[in-house]
């Protein structure tokens, strides 16, 4: 079972397909869950505390906006943990403010730099593309049987 980072990190389809084909999807929910379930001094209603931008310094320079560093504190450890990644390049649901948009760019850059096997594809727009989409993901995941090594 390999740990597969999914982008968009909140994707239902990618999360389901990765788990369905026997691997562990690494998405935003895991990082958020860890923060929500950790007791401590917090400032509800936020899950991101002032500590996060400091932790994000590992992934982005100090002059990068704290919004990006705070988000990278969630995604960075997941990317480090990932043994493979699946990226949907035309995900119009992965949009947002500059913090989200720049974090997304940094996530994609970090994934491509990390050297792990990556599958890039587009969301299907018809049934035939749906068959190709699922087949491509299955083939990619089947090749990861040895913990993500290809």
């Amino acid at each position, binding site marked *: 079972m390999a740990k597969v980072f999914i982008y968009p990190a909140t994707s*239902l389809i990618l999360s389901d397909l990765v788990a369905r084909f026997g691997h562990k*999807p690494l*998405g*935003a929910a895991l990082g958020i869950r860890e923060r*929500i379930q950790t007791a401590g001094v917090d400032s509800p209603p936020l899950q991101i505390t002032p500590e996060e931008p400091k932790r994000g310094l590992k992934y982005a320079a100090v002059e990068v906006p704290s919004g990006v560093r705070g988000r990278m504190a969630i995604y960075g450890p997941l990317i480090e943990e990932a043994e493979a990644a699946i990226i949907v390049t035309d995900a*119009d*649901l992965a949009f947002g403010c500059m913090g989200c948009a720049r974090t997304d760019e940094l996530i994609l850059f970090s994934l491509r730099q990390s050297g792990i096997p990556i599958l890039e594809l587009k969301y299907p727009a018809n049934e035939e593309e749906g*068959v190709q*989409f699922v*087949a491509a993901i299955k083939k990619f995941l089947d090749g990861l049987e040895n913990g993500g090594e290809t």
Partner: protein
Amino acid sequence: MMAEYSPDYVGTVTRYVFVESPSMTPGELALRAYEASEGVLIKETCFGLQVTGEPESVDRLIEEIRTFDPAHIFVKDRGSPPGDPRRCRANLGGARPGYLGHEREFRILRYITRGLEELDRRGEEAGVPEPTPPVSEKKPLLDIKRLQELIETEES
């Protein structure tokens, strides 16, 4: 103002179960899931369920739920527990954050279902053509005249 934060449901996992099926409604899914729940907390929603409990129990239940209608039931992790005041629609007065993303992907689920059924039907040996790899295209820049029009429309 910093305040002490005591989390609920520590050590549990929460998963969303989406059902997009011609033969099963979220209500029916919930009834069948309750029968197999064995202590896992189940919340029925408009699109399916949220299940919360110990990781092993949730895994077992999800495995069981998937067998009801394998190509039409989709599962993903959720970070927040059910009814979390920071996420619950009841406290926010509108769609929960993340709902719109689900709505967007929900429209594509029928293609995924088709893919799963077709792959199951064709079996392992059947070759499926690879999807064409996405080409990164540069988005066209906004035309200056179009920008002027937009500004004028906004001002009037």
